[in-house]
């Protein structure tokens, strides 16, 4: 579904990503793990078009999307969950959700999408008039995920799902993520919480200093010496 080939990204003179290759197949949860500053967010930003790669290509469902602006990428069916959710604090839940369907193709279908999101997260329907800034951490997470679904995406990119979350909420967030997958969303997840993300993902890539150093099934990675030592502290 998504294929990233030999992607190189620079910030000024500093190279942040080096020949990154990655694949996501339909229906998968793929985790991208690594430490702070490894380049995980940059990789997602390069896919969504917020950062222009120097070389390499990004292909989505057979179409070359390298360097397309973010609004065009969303239009093609890629939805982005930014670090920390980034809700619109002064808007109600309903307005936040509607904003998720902003692009032309999904704006007309926003009523149906809203029903779908309410079905997955009934709490959002109950509180639809409440301001986003008055929500608790868990509710915000639900709302941010609901907003991701509003544009009827095929692929969801999640940047640091567990960012700033209490351990209990991290667990819940990952459960929500599986719920989204069960509803037909393919997921590329960017996480520093290595253990938990490897537990729910099908496959994973390890990004270190801008390079993919290993990849494979989560089972394999959980047992690889490098991952155990560097990320799991075992």
């Amino acid at each position, binding site marked *: 579904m998504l294929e990233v080939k030999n992607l190189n990204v620079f910030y000024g003179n500093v190279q942040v990503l080096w020949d990154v290759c990655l694949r996501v197949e339909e229906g998968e949860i793929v985790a991208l793990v690594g430490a702070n500053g490894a380049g995980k967010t940059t990789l997602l930003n390069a896919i*969504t078009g*917020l950062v222009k790669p120097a070389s390499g290509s990004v292909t989505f469902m057979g179409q070359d999307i390298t360097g397309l*602006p*973010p*609004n065009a*990428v*969303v*239009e093609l069916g890629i*939805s*982005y969950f*930014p670090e920390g959710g*980034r*809700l*619109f*604090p*002064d*808007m*109600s839940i309903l*307005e936040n959700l*509607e*904003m*998720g369907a*902003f*692009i032309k193709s999904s*704006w007309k279908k926003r009523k149906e999408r809203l029903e779908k999101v309410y079905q997955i997260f009934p709490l959002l329907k109950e509180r639809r*008039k*409440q*301001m986003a800034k*008055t929500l608790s951490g868990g509710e915000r997470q639900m709302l941010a995920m609901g*907003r991701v679904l509003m*544009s009827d995406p095929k692929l969801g990119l999640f940047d640091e799902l567990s960012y700033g979350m209490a351990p209990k909420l991290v667990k819940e967030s990952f459960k929500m993520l599986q719920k989204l997958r069960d509803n037909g969303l393919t997921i590329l997840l960017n996480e520093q919480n290595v253990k938990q993300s490897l537990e729910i993902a099908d496959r994973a890539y390890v990004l270190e200093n801008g390079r993919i150093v290993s990849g494979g099934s989560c089972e394999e990675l959980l047992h690889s010496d490098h991952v155990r030592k560097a990320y799991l502290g075992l």
Partner: protein
Amino acid sequence: MTNLSMTVKKNIPYIAISVLILALLAAVPFFSKPYTVVLLKNILMFAALTLSWALFSGPTGYISLATAAFYGVGIYTAAYLGKVLPLPVMVLCGGLASFLLALIIGAITLRLRGIYFAIFTLSSVELIKQVLHWFEITVLGTRGRPVVKISNTTVYYVVLLIVVLLMVTTYFLKRSRYGLAMSSIGSCEDAAAHIGINVTWVKVLTFALSSFFIGLTGATTATGLIYIDSHIAFDLNYSFFPTLMAIFGGIGNVFGPVIGAAVFSYLREILITRFPYAYMIIFGAVMILTILYLPNGIIGLVQTIKDKVLGGKDATASSRKVN
């Protein structure tokens, strides 16, 4: 459409009051002294500038101090085209000239955020002023130009029309999909970009639209000035007053900027005649008190009183007002 007719229905009292006030204002020149017309014309002019300013800076949160630049462009358009074009065409040209200038300034500056945007827009006024001054002196060998005089009553009606246009535009824009995009930029610009809004385009276009109205206002009111030069046309006060008036009135809805402009410019009129040397000091004190005690302006105060009287049963509505 049902949604729209519902909001219209809900606002019938407001619409009725607006129409009534509009009818009163339209009748003023028939039965009042010339001074009243001039005073009201000035108030309406500030209302137009403040509404234009709030049209862009209100929802997006980008504080523009370039109002004087677009106002000045309108004035200069009137000075150059006033003799050759009929009033409506000339005024429209003023609007378009400002629109184009705003597209350029917007494309350059709207990648800046917060205070940097404010500073850059402020300096754009000074830049245009000085370049124009230099051009007039060295190339044309003159300074300033006369402006064709048009009767105060005519100007009064044109400015009134601009204010009405602005109120209607603000009202409908706010309730449109485009309006949602504008406020999402003010709320969280990164998220707005992520959900597929072309943030640069929305910002630049809204900035230009707001400047279009400022240009219209400048071209219209210039006809009362008789003579202009770059320092009269690009007076920095016209950048600060609309901003202050909007804060004073409150930028939550259509009426805030109008009320702010009305009270503020009338206050200015009184102070300038009674205390010609101290009026800016008194002005400053009023502004400080407003920001300290009425952070949401006069409209915010009205809302607070309304909530208290009604017992604050709608917690969600009042929480929106507090920022």
